[in-house]
């Protein structure tokens, strides 16, 4: 009796999940039966689960170039594996699953649940399918952009001397594109400001008080209202199915525990694979098969760890030599000056302060991870001086501007330093070459 009740409940849970997933725009949603069979690692329905994972992960990585639109299962399997690797999923058995997608439904269920929890997969997808009001702006704060191995560098290697000029051309073109984008953004901001000021006092919510772009468009074209209504209704249904899922979620996790138990029970009976290859190599087959972006990231991680190790050894060496010399100097000093306790205390305090200052100066570039958040712009009277931290839900534009300006000056000083380093390097190189005069460009 209890078992049947549990079964019915389970079916309800899975059904709500399937409904939510279908609402999020996934086309081929597997039936609840597929999920149930997955627990027992049945082979049928595995392909459906691979396709489900692919459809859920693809919207989050739209610009990954390694996947075509065609429904090629092998490519989809590869994509899912590389994305899971990117997020740090450490279960080796998943990466050893065959590329034709015939086995491993249980592993896929576990991976899916892991994604739900780890990266809030469903919430991210919900966020993406939100209705846009037109007032949004994205802010990218913190972090330094990773320099990826761009195709331009290969052009230089191939093209010889001409390649550098082509690169300069491309850089100039990029600069012009950027300027056009900048002008377009300024225009957008000016027009948005106009809309907000003209519609002051029109909104029913007093804390907002002006209309958004989408709402203004509705006033201009009343015929759009039915369409807007439809969109709003579908969004409400989606949110309702999400709420339903949230209500039943604890049961899902309990079921997942049973799936995990089933897996562990099976594993202890199976003979462990003798040659358990490393997790990364399971994905890294041939260089051209693997995802380009993951490759470059792997390369960078290797590079970084190598540099970190070198840095560590270098610092240790420096520190030990410095310490030895300091100890000697301290010995000499001690012989010269007889110190009494109060003087020593005062000097020690001063030194402590100076060291603290120097350390804080070194710590200036606190590298935060790059965040790309979308904010809705609201035009409000400046009332109280609320200084909210930038990463909270709500913030003031002046605050953001201040932080961005600080970032800008940091980057600018870094650029100036890099430029002067480059110039020194070039002067040094030129000094070694005879018969050539180095003429820098006209001062700006």
């Amino acid at each position: 009796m209890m078992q049947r009740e549990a079964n019915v409940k389970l079916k309800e849970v899975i059904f709500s999940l399937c409904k939510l997933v279908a609402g999020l725009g996934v086309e081929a949603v597997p039936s609840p039966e597929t999920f149930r069979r997955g627990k027992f690692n049945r082979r049928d329905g595995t392909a459906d689960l691979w396709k489900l994972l692919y459809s859920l992960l693809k919207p989050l990585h739209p610009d990954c170039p390694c996947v075509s639109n065609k429904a090629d299962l092998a490519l989809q399997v590869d994509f899912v594996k590389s994305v899971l690797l990117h997020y740090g999923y450490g279960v080796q058995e998943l990466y050893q699953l065959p590329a034709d997608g015939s086995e491993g439904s249980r592993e896929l269920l576990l991976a899916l649940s892991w994604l739900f929890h780890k990266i809030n997969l469903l919430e991210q997808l919900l966020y993406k399918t939100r209705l846009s009001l037109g007032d949004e702006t994205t802010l990218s704060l913190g972090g330094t952009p990773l320099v990826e191995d761009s195709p331009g560098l290969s052009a230089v290697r191939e093209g010889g001397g001409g390649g550098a000029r082509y690169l300069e051309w491309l850089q100039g073109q990029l600069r012009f594109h950027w300027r056009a984008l900048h002008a377009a953004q300024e225009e957008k901001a000016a027009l948005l400001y106009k809309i907000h000021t003209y519609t002051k006092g029109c909104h029913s919510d007093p804390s907002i008080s002006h209309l958004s772009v989408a709402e203004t468009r509705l006033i201009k074209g009343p015929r759009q209202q039915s369409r807007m209504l439809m969109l709003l209704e579908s969004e409400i249904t989606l949110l309702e199915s999400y709420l339903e899922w949230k209500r039943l979620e604890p049961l899902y996790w309990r079921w997942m525990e049973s799936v995990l138990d089933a897996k562990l029970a099976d594993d202890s009976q199976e003979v462990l694979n003798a040659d358990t290859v490393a997790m990364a190599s399971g994905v890294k087959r041939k260089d051209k098969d693997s995802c380009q972006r993951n490759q470059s990231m792997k390369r960078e991680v290797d590079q970084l760890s190598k540099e970190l190790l070198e840095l560590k050894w270098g610092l240790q060496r420096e520190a030990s030599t410095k310490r030895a010399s300091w100890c000697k100097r301290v010995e000499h000093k001690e012989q010269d000056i007889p110190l009494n306790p109060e003087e020593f205390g005062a000097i020690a305090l001063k030194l402590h302060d100076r060291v603290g200052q120097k350390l804080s100066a070194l710590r200036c570039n606190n590298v935060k991870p790059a965040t790309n958040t979308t904010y809705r712009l609201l035009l409000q009277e400046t009332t109280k001086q609320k200084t909210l931290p930038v990463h909270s839900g709500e913030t003031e534009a002046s605050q953001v501007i201040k932080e961005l300006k600080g970032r800008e000056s940091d980057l600018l000083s870094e650029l100036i330093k890099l430029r002067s380093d480059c110039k020194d390097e070039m002067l040094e190189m030129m000094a070694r070459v005879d018969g050539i005069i180095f003429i820098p460009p006209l001062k700006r």
Partner: protein
Amino acid sequence: MSIVTVQLGQCGNQIGQELFNVISNDTHSSCGQCPKTENEAYSVCSQERFFSEGRNGAVSARAVLVDMEPKVISHAISTAAKSGRWKYGDQSSFCQKQGSGNNWANGFCVHGPRHEEDIMDLIRREVEKCDRLGGFFNMMSMAGGTGSGMGTYITQCLRGTYPHSFILNQVTWPYGTGEVIVQNYNSVLTLSHLYQSSDAILVHENDTVHKICAQLMNIKQISFKDVNKVIAHQLGSVLQPAYTEGASEYNRNPLGDLMKSMVCHPEYKLLGLRNIPQMSEASLAYSVFTWPGLLKHLRQMLIANAKMEEGVDWQVRPPADGLPLAEKGTRNRRFNTSLANLLILRGKDVQSADTGGFMDPALYTSWLPPGVASSTWRTPMSFNRYEKSATLVSNSQFLLKPLDGIVGKAWNMFASRAYVHQYTQFGISEEDFLDSFTALEQIIASYTHL
């Protein structure tokens, strides 16, 4: 997307007034062969680009007029007002009582800084009227004092105040046998300084335009007005709305699109214009052109470095395919290598025009693929009553010889320090001269090794 025109000096103001005239006439003449929607889109785009509407519906040009003497400016303003269709804004001009006496240093070091605030104020007011600033179009001559000296200073200020804007400078190259004795010094200083602040420098040579007037338009007594009209026609054919490749709306960023296709490399900023057909109004009614004919002619003009339609050397050919780079020196010296070309086609059946001839890699330098180097804009609207009109904006070696000539003559003068005291007394030192010469030599070298 609006362009703010800054007319500097006598030359700039005269040509500017003719330019707005051409644009206004072109916008108001309806094109019989195009549907009404096309006409409307064209005129709306053109109006937004060059004119602003005042409160009482008065159409005023988005322009700032700057000169040291009041004569030319007042003439320009009154001529514009007489047209009845457009006028200059009431508060858009700046002038003083006395000129710069063709002294570049006077314009650059004295008048420029002294009047910087007032002039930038005028420009700022014009910019604020724009919903979206498409860039600045500065018109000046190279040889005078106000236009070239102060104009260069103002361009520098513009770059400082609007660092992300597109700045296109139109410079008029003086007559080879010009009257101003220091015109070569002025030209050298102007070009070297403009290279720093401007994005692109569009050159018109007085000698060339004079020949066009004489031979093509059959004008007996050529006045400055005729020359200016030709230049205005050529400029208008570039700046009026057109469709970039694959676009379904008139381009809203003309200066940006122009720069993207032509002047991305910081060492190659000199642009030349060729426009065909050009003829007197009387002959216009009796002439019929085909696109293949026009394009073939234009291509040969480019290759043979011809400045106008007549007297084109048809013997010059581009090098054969597959010629290795090492043999570049033995190439036909009269052949004009291009870095980038932009074709602007206006008129009837423009979609059928085949621009394949300009995609020939032999025309271009080796390090830029012809797909990138060559672009085409089109519009079915006819321009300035020419049923078909083709313009070529070209970043090529065409200015190499004149530039070399000017630098050579200026250097000869400088070697004997002739007239240099006129400059040093106002603040341009001999060091500055040497810097300018070096910069220009670099530009000449870059273009020679294209």
